[in-house]
């Protein structure tokens, strides 16, 4: 049997389409499942009150606040550091073996399991530097985790800036710093934001790195300084699902926690997306 070129093409596209729909379907199924199971406990009270009765009821306010602090803390540390590293490797460093080594190490760093970061953070920040279990120790650990992501995406964003902008700027008597500040960074900014979005998602969802460095099982009050412990959504979810006082009873709270976590990540991504679009609109 001879299959015509056109039929072959149609078969191929049909397969692609089915695979695409399956992927999307799985995603929708997960989201739907969590929404369906979590929606029953959702209320302003759930968001703004403390856990009660051995965490089988009540809210998850401390965990939400904790996660927000950790996202903020790790972004504040990792973002400037990562962007500056990327600027160095792309704009300044000569393409020699040192630069290549840095690049390889950055990639390796990205593939290290997060529990290893957790142990490292515990050794260095919690014990050696004696921060104890604290927001600062947790943020530092998380920032190490997302640093390679920020560096990689920023590098790609900088490389995507046409070289003609650089030469054009230099030819007008601008030096390197001026060129980076006035031309390259504004042009690359929307793509750098992508790295930020990925990082936010990563930080809000990680459990292992915060396990030994910051989170508490239950805290009756909010942190008052960066040297305090916090609760965090992913760990709270883990506790509720595996080692709560009454796992069956706390299941709806667990789904509610998952739902809140997803909503927070989506909200932050949306905000970043709006900033990105705003920036692109101004440039074009």
């Amino acid at each position: 049997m001879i299959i015509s070129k056109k039929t072959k093409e149609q078969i191929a596209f049909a397969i692609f389409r089915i695979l695409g729909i399956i992927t999307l379907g799985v995603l929708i199924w997960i989201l739907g499942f969590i929404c369906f199971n979590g929606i029953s406990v959702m209320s302003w009270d759930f968001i703004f009150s403390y856990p009660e009765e051995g965490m089988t009821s009540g809210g998850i306010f401390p965990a939400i606040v904790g996660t927000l602090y950790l996202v903020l803390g790790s972004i504040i540390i990792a973002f400037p550091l990562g962007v500056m590293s990327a600027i160095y490797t792309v704009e300044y460093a000569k393409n020699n073996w040192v630069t290549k080594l840095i690049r390889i190490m950055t990639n390796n760093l990205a593939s290290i399991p997060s529990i290893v970061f957790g142990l490292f953070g515990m050794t260095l920040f919690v014990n050696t530097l004696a921060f104890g279990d604290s927001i600062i120790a947790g943020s530092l650990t998380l920032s190490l985790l997302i640093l390679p992501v920020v560096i990689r995406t920023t590098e790609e964003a900088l490389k995507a800036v046409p070289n003609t902008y650089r030469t054009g700027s230099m030819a007008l008597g601008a030096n390197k710093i001026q060129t980076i500040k006035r031309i390259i960074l504004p042009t690359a900014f929307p793509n750098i934001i992508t790295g930020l979005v990925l990082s936010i998602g990563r930080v809000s969802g990680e459990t292992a790195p915060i396990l030994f460095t910051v989170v508490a099982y239950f805290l009756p009050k909010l942190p008052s300084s960066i040297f305090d412990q916090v609760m965090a959504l992913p760990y709270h979810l883990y506790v509720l699902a595996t080692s709560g006082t009454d796992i069956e009873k706390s299941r709806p709270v667990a789904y509610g926690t998952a739902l809140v976590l997803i909503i927070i990540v989506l909200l932050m991504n949306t905000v970043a997306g709006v900033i990105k679009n705003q920036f692109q609109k101004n440039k074009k």
Partner: protein
Amino acid sequence: MIEAKNVNFYYHTFHALKDINMQIEDNSVTALIGPSGCGKSTFLRLFNRMNDEIDGAKLTGECLINNENIYHKSVQVDLLRKNVGMVFQKPNPFPKSILENVAYGLRVNGINNKQLIEEKVKESLTAAALWNEVKDKLHKSAFELSGGQQQRLCIARALAVSPSILLMDEPASALDPISTAKIEELIFELKQRYTIIIVTHNMQQAARVSDKTGFFMYGELVEHSETKKMFLAPDKTETQNYITGRFG
């Protein structure tokens, strides 16, 4: 006056320019022609030190502007580039507004006075024969302009910092014939106030716009003379062959 004295230039081990000696008078247009890879663009970029950025570049000999060696330690490269403007092969406006594109050179050189900038922008755009086309949309993105307009914008951008020399690296090769004609007209106008060196692959263009022409081949300056003479009665057979299209 621009002068190259015994200039040799290397990219790593590649000998890109071989013992070039050349003198270029003020307020003239000099065309540099020659086959691809002959060193004419490398030679052009010596005069605003754009080759400095390239890894493994090495220069011997002297490049003089008004009898000052521009590769001397005391020369500030940013000031040199302010004096020696450059227009590139592909129009390369920045992702900014038309006004900010022209103002860019002023701003990086420390000028922030709004009124002064606006005056300079108008003056430069007028000099680049673009003012009438863009005066009502100065705050629009430079990307909204056509290719030819973008190139004239880049010329205006170079003029804004008040250079005395303009280097043009095949400024019309990416443009349509009408835009090319406009750029050529413009070069003719600009000659009154600037010394212009233009690299071109287009022989007719060299003949139309330049006073003098330098013919490069394999990194050597084969011939440098009055454009008329070069195209009517060149001294060297290589030149003759290249111009008539038997080579290159």
